[in-house]
């Protein structure tokens, strides 16, 4: 694991500990963004708006999975 990747993992873990309401989907996605897209170039307003909308959607906790009997 590169320095950048290990640093991002640590940062996400720390931030998640302080913000337990952040969903797993959001923290995983932010980890990917921080090691990739966010570093590569300055995102446009439209791109940021799209990410913002999706992140807000992903903050809604997934409904509990119901066990089904075979």
């Amino acid at each position, binding site marked *: 694991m590169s320095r950048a990747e290990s640093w991002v993992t640590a940062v996400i873990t720390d931030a998640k500990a302080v913000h337990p309401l952040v969903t797993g989907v959001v923290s995983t996605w932010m980890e990917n963004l921080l090691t990739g897209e966010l570093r590569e170039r300055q995102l446009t*307003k439209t791109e940021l*708006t799209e990410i913002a909308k999706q992140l807000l959607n992903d903050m809604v906790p997934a409904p509990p999975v119901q066990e089904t009997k075979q």
Partner: protein
Amino acid sequence: MRINAVQLSWFRGAAEPVALDLNGKSMAVYGSNGSGKSSFVDAIEYVISNGKIEHLAHEHSGRRQEKAVRNTHTPEGGKIFLSIKFRDGTEHKVKIGADGHQTSAGPPTIAMPAWEYRRTILRQHEAAQFIQSTKGDKYSALLPLLGLQPLERAAENLRQLAKSIEDQSKLPEARTRIADAAMRRNSVFATDTKEEILAKVFDLHTKYCPDKAATTEARTRCEELKTSIAARVNASSADQRRHVALNDAALLDLKAHIDAVRTANGKLAGAVEPLIAEKLQVLESTGAYVDKLDDQAAVNCPACGRPIPVDAFEAHIQSEREKLQGVIHTFNTCKTTIATLCNTVRLLQTTLKKADLKSWQDELADGALAPNLAYLDKIDSEELRKACGEDELKAIEENLISLIDAAASSSKAAPPDAQELSTAKQTVDVVAEMIAAKAQEAAAKRAETLISFIGALEKSTRAEIKAQAKEVIDEISADIQAMWAILHPGEPIDNLQLYIPADADKAVDIKLRFHGVEQDSPRLTLSEGHRNSLGLCIFLAMSKREGQSDRPVFLDDVVVSFDREHRGMIAEILKEHFNTRQVIVLTHDRDWYADLRVQLPGNDWGFKTLLPYESPDLGIRWSHKTGTFDDARSLLKDRPDAAANDARKIMDVELAIVAEKLKLKFPFVRGEKNDRRMAHDFLERLLAEGRKCFQKKAGADYGFHADAMKAIDCANRLLSTWGNRASHSTDVVRPEATALIDACECALGFFTCSSCQKLIWFADAANQEAVQCGCGEIRWRYGKACK
């Protein structure tokens, strides 16, 4: 990538194609002022900076600098071009049209246009620029070296993302709607508990939706109730519908909304007015702040102008930011309350204009409330949204409250069934609003959590940037200190460091210790010469950092403000820190050039001299010799006495070096003491010792170098006669000066081996009591064996 040659044609001082041939080696180039040295540096800058040369950027040079980059005497059809050839055989070519338009093509692997100017070229006037630049500019200059652009981009993207999430979630509006719903709940249900309210909804659902008893969820019950009640209202009599509509109008809490806007306006005024007054002070205090930067004990805050200790600065700035955030929040709240008021006014317009209320309106139109109705018709809610001050609020209050009161008064006379329907409608509406507000509250909380999470990521990213920047900056500082120590050994100025100020992001500054006292800036105590010296060290330390790229470094006349002692040590830095890099040094300082020829290793370095510039037609021309006698020859035509005098000065310098290297019996101290000795003194000594010490190979053995001694003797005689005469009068004619220059050049030439081209002191001879050239053809025996 090393450069093999820089070729110019009709570019700047060049006429017909002229090349600086480097063959991948480092090079020291000497040329008197105006000889065209800098044209080669200009060519490099032209390519790096995509056709722009900074010192030519002025109103007279033309849009594309076409008036400055082309030789003024370019003949018709003369092609202006540059060519930079690299050691791998590739070439970067630039053709420049008469209008300055350029066509440039080069190898992508080398990508010259991507080279960083600030780490490739240092010119005389740029040496201290880094020191004098702002902290932010220093950081920008260092940023590419820090390799932190990806993290910088990430931090900025995170900041923008948090802002975008705030915009998308419309947090201030959501908070206002939640508060509004709470207000309506209190107004309709007072202290009823949630269960009591839900029980009321259940009763209404049983009554108005008997066929949907299976529905249990409150939200669905409310939706079903809304549909059912609306259907009942539509099916009721005109009188009943009129009463329901009047009740709808009567329930609009316009007064509360007016009060909310008034309160928000008041808060905003309270927050903004002192802020404006405070910000007005900023202009004044910023000036004072800059003035007091030298004294860091206490500075005036640039945000508010108050004096504040430096250690409290960061906390203070944070509180200023929070204050500003508070004002922004108040501003947003105010906007939202105005929006709510506008919506209520529009709802009142819609409600009172319903067909069901036509008769009621007709009654009012004939009475005292006719102007109020006219006002309601005219009011433009969009205009109100833009400007809603106290005058507008008063007008709304005076005109519309009485209309609502009238509606309330009329609705009181409603028949019981209409009254009941209206109350049911109100109950369902408020419960539906409460349910929606609850969902909004959860969404707002999620958005706030997300914003805070991303804010934490941004903060961590910025902390990482600082940590990584510090590592690199510390390494660069170590190089600066090492180079400074070479240039200024034993001087009481040390501990020079680049550092990141604790109170700022994206900033770098320089500190040092001056006679044991820590200084926050070199500009506090360093002289111009020291500042230039430090600037050179910083440039070289930053350039060294790019070692892997193996790009060349150009130093163009950077020693102008250096004294002889310090100037002489630059070669030591180049030898120690740049022994694997290609460095091109250009200078008009003849003494320094002579020093460099001796100090820098001949295997890695080449030496060239330019002929004095004669005319744009002839352009830049190289001398075929590495010495500087061509400078003197250029004066022969008009001032033979000056030419002879120049030759004597060259001999003063060159012979001082010879004497030192051959350990002649003088207390040879580099620097000023030798400056007081004349060429004649050195030549006398050379003649006295040379008869035993200067030897040339003769077969298997060595013999007395008679030709060299003869040439030295000749130069000595001519210097004593015509040279002295040239120094004290103008009574020297051209043939005399020509003979003197030739004799001097000839005498010095004997110290370079005609076979291997190395100087006589190139290597120690095996017995350690002699020095010799590279092949051993000539040698100087200074030890006991010579006595």
